[in-house]
């Protein structure tokens, strides 16, 4: 059944009918499995990968390294919770190594991101320091190469 997830991960538009044919399963079984995955929050959501650079919309992404003080009994969870609840935060990971949290922010402008860091993130009590890195260009995201041209270069050969 995990193959259903593999297919949906690459193409969330694949219908239960299509998946059923691909996997040789009854469509009811596929529908039921998807429902169950959704109920169990294994499938957390369906989103679309967009290359915003190709649109008029201004958008910047920044990766922020955050050092925090973990809290007794709660570890990093509570402080992470306070951070990832901001809608500007698109991803938040606990890290090993030189800092604690990776926070990925999307904003309209660099100024907006800078304001978020200086006014919301940095002043949080447990936050010791932040280092903000702006993304200049996205080459590949979620396994998809943005500028890749798929050209079928197979010649007409007979075999």
């Amino acid at each position, binding site marked *: 059944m995990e*193959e259903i997830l593999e*297919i949906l991960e690459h193409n969330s538009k694949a219908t239960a009918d*299509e998946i059923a*044919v*691909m*996997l*040789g399963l009854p469509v009811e079984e596929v529908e039921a499995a998807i429902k169950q995955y959704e109920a169990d929050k294994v499938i957390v959501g369906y989103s679309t990968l967009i290359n915003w650079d190709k649109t008029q919309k201004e958008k910047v992404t920044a990766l922020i390294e955050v050092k925090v003080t973990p809290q007794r009994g709660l570890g990093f969870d509570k402080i992470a919770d306070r951070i990832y609840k901001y809608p500007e935060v698109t991803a938040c990971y606990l890290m090993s190594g030189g800092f604690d949290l990776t926070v990925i922010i999307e904003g309209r402008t660099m100024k907006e991101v800078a304001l978020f860091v200086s006014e919301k993130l940095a002043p949080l009590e447990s936050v010791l320091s932040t280092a903000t890195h702006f993304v200049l260009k996205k080459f590949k995201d979620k396994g998809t190469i943005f500028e890749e041209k*798929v050209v*079928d270069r*197979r*010649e*007409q*050969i*007979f*075999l």
Partner: protein
Amino acid sequence: MIMKDMILDKIKKVPPSGIRKYFDLINEMTDVISLGVGEPDFITPWNIREAGIYSLETGHTQYSSNAGFIELREEISKYLANKFDLVYNPEDEILVTVGGSEGIDAALRALVGPGDEVIIPEPSFVAYKGCTAFTGATPVTIELKQEDDFKLTAKQLEEAITEKTKVVIIPFPNNPTGAIMGRDDLYELVQVLKNKDIVVLSDEIYCELTYEGKHTSIASFPEMKDRTLVINGFSKSFAMTGWRLGYACGHKDLINEMKKIHQYAIMCAPTTAQDAAIEALRNSEEDVTMMSKEYNRRRRVAIDGFRKAGFSCYEPKGAFYVFPCIKKTGLSSEDFCEKLLIEQKVLVVPGTAFGECGEGYVRACYASSMENIIEAMKRIKEFADKY
């Protein structure tokens, strides 16, 4: 001098590819979905390409030994042992060739000549018949039937064998039908062959693309090992068609003679490709599995598509082809393909290209993106509804 008269009749008699005309047509059209070409649409996995680049970068541009790098032959030996229970000594039982095709050609040249017969089940890959004819030997074909799941039966084989039979070609998983032969099926053939002076040429180039059970090689039967030559390669399993790399494994006396042909005609297989192939065998298991899984999904979509369009379609268990029966349209295989191409812009290949018995069938290769296959099946249904 008239050049045509200078050329041997046995060469001239071999017909050129029967589907050239479709390729000419396709060049003048746009938006064609080609399910015609029999090669992976995947590009060689990056780690393998990178190994090829590294090989060039570090100046590894010399010949290898005639039989191929011993390091590569050792990897081939390990791979065959792990996957298919085949035991070959890398020193003298493995020859690295320029694609599987070179192995087929060298084997036939080493084994047969005028007066000998080569048994070839059809429909199948076009090179067997051509290469046999080039040697002056006689191809004897066996018609594989849909009601037998396109398998070669012991009875058919028994009936085709004569005193002149020297080689039997066993091409499974099969191009173009997608049929496979499981252990039980092969056992029946082994009973026919085990006490005869006949060499089996087992073409297993599609071995990694087996969707039901595990591929079995006829050479894994102890009584067959010394009388079988296994042909295999990197083209289909690792999506490495353009690298031109294959190998032949068998009795050291046969390999040794084939090595002479290879040595004088080819010298050695390309060094860059051999270096890349070492990486392929060491670190590409995951990619092979991923590709095979993806082909399997497309296979089901293609079978479903042809069946929904009303065609009787045998469920292929291997390779990347479906071979539906198109007799219900009343069209010949060639007319079907030409009309489908012109009216719906989908290219499939007439079954007759793989032997006369392919009449009434077409071959569609599902090594194409899922979107292409879904769209092609839609167009084929529209076409079928008209006939």
